[in-house]
């Protein structure tokens, strides 16, 4: 599946097979092509290359209204002139389904999203979270082959977002609907999806389960996006025994056993998660440093530690630490991820 605009490539060569009932998240920063991919699937944007098949049927050539995809829009796109009930029954009415059945199915959908008592209200009388649930009910009541969700939670506040995450997951489990979910929020994607597709500037970076993507990102971009806050440009300084290399940057030297194909390169990117760095005086990769900033984050502290004149590391720890104190850090060699430097 590809889509280009004049000269810019919005999406190139996305190939993906989704089994029935799977929850797939398209993940990436804004402008990475994830919404383009979703709109292409929905038929709202034509493809410039490639094809889309549903079972054995080719569907990229048919208009959106015939694809039987339910779509949840970022701004919900509820019809302001219709009541909640009319909004949800819209798709069924278009399909000319019997009145009695429409009533039943809409009531069931309202029940499912817990909006029964709001059925006769107008969309603008509901809160953001409620509107979001209406949008979801409207998309699933037509029993679509595939549900497409375009950042459905990005307009909600943090608390509601977490609540809705659970509800969407629950709905997905209950109804077994194949779902394609677009988001820029890695936490959202990790917690909801069966499989993640990480996109960057229109290209697929990695496809895998949440665990695979989180623990073993395939490149420095995915690592950065998955919360590897410490991303250092280093050099491979030594080939140690089989399965480990030493990377260095000025006085900082680290041993890594997680380097993929990067051992033959000179310039590399090294990624370490803040929570893999431990305050410890023993263990692998001991690093000495001075705390230059400490940020209290409730459950833990985020420390900025100067380990070399130009190199700072972000560390997450539950231990209260004073700014200015000298500390010792350690990180397991298999959690020091070494990638080819993309800027070559």
């Amino acid at each position, binding site marked *: 599946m590809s889509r280009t605009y004049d000269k810019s490539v919005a999406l190139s060569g996305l190939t993906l097979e989704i089994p029935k009932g799977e929850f797939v998240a398209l993940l990436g920063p804004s402008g990475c092509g994830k919404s383009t991919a979703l709109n292409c699937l929905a038929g709202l944007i034509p493809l410039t290359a490639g094809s889309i098949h549903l079972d054995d049927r080719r569907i990229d050539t048919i208009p*959106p*209204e015939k694809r039987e995809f339910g779509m949840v829009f970022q701004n919900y796109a509820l019809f*302001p002139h219709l009541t909640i009930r009319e909004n949800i029954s*819209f798709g069924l009415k278009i399909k000319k389904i019997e009145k009695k059945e429409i009533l039943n199915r809409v009531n069931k959908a309202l029940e499912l999203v817990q909006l029964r008592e709001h059925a006769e209200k107008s969309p603008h009388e509901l809160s*953001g979270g409620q509107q979001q649930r209406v949008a979801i009910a*409207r*998309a699933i009541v037509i029993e679509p082959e595939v549900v497409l969700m375009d950042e459905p939670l990005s307009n909600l506040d943090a608390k509601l977002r977490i609540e809705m995450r659970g509800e969407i997951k629950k709905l997905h489990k209950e109804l077994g609907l194949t779902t394609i979910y677009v988001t820029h929020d890695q936490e959202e994607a990790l917690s909801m999806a069966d499989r993640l597709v990480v996109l960057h500037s229109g290209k697929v970076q990695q496809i895998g389960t949440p665990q695979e993507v989180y623990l073993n990102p395939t490149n420095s971009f995915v690592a950065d996006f998955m919360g590897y806050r410490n991303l250092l440009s280093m050099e491979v300084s030594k080939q140690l025994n089989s399965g480990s290399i030493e990377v260095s940057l000025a006085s900082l030297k680290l041993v890594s056993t997680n380097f993929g194909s990067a051992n033959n390169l000179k310039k590399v990117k090294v990624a370490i998660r803040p929570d893999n760095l431990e305050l410890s005086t023993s263990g692998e990769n001991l690093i000495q440093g001075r705390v230059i900033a400490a940020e209290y984050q409730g459950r833990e502290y985020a420390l900025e530690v100067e380990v070399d004149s130009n190199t700072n590391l972000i560390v997450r720890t539950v231990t209260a630490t004073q700014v200015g104190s000298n500390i010792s850090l350690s990180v397991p060699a298999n959690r020091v991820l070494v990638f080819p430097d993309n800027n070559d």
Partner: protein
Amino acid sequence: MALETKHSLKHYFADRGVDRVLVLIIPALTMMLVFFVYPSIYGIFLSFHPINHSGFLGNYKSFFHDTYMRRTIFNTFRIALPVSIINISAALPVAVYVRKYVKRTRPINTLLVIPMSLGTVLIAEGLYAYLNPSGWLNQTLMDVGIISQPLRLLQNFWGVIISLVISGFPFAFLLMLSYASSINPSLELAASTLGANSRQVFRFITFPLLAPGLAITFCLNFVLAFSVFPSAELLGNPSGDSHVLAIAAADAVTQKFDYSMASTISIISAFFELFVIASVFLLRSKLYSGSTAGTKG
């Protein structure tokens, strides 16, 4: 204590939008009073004082007893209603189409603003040259052989209709375009993912959301067409089927020097305009009238 009351009074007014900025409405208010409110009231007063002293309602009685005068009401409606209907029913689909498929609307807008800025008199002059029996249109049609006799498009009903469509359509289109543009396109996309084809999307989503704008555009067009004067005078048949209320009022002044009767005709004209506007808005109130921008985030 005194300070507190002063403050709370200030808050009381501020709460109701009363503050010093309100001074800015004085010039507009003065204009309204001097050029609209006072003349209107004076006109109403005048209409009840006929110059022939035939009593309080004398002018109104003589207007409605005179079949020629009564016909002006019909003549005006016969022009204003079809013109408004033609204009909005042409403007609506074009505006919806332009909003959906045309990215650069500026050339279109410029093209359409020109007839609006020319003024009805100039349009009438232009049309006179264009539509008369030896004008371009008839000459071309006869040369090509489509017609053998020149079409009679002047000094009758059609001349007035054509000129009002030319001056009224751009106005209707630009208004409708701005109403159409305010509809969030994702509403239509949502409808199409729910299985609605483009006709159904228009019928169930776009049209209902445009209805309020449609009502306002219709009313403004109707009012403009209802008070038609220059085109009726220049392109129509001002003593026959385009003897509209505006011409009748003007005649009362210029031929009979009867300001009182002219006022009466104006009041009658205003009454019918308001009647139509009220009916349109009554009809509209039965339809959706809220925001078209989609729901809030």
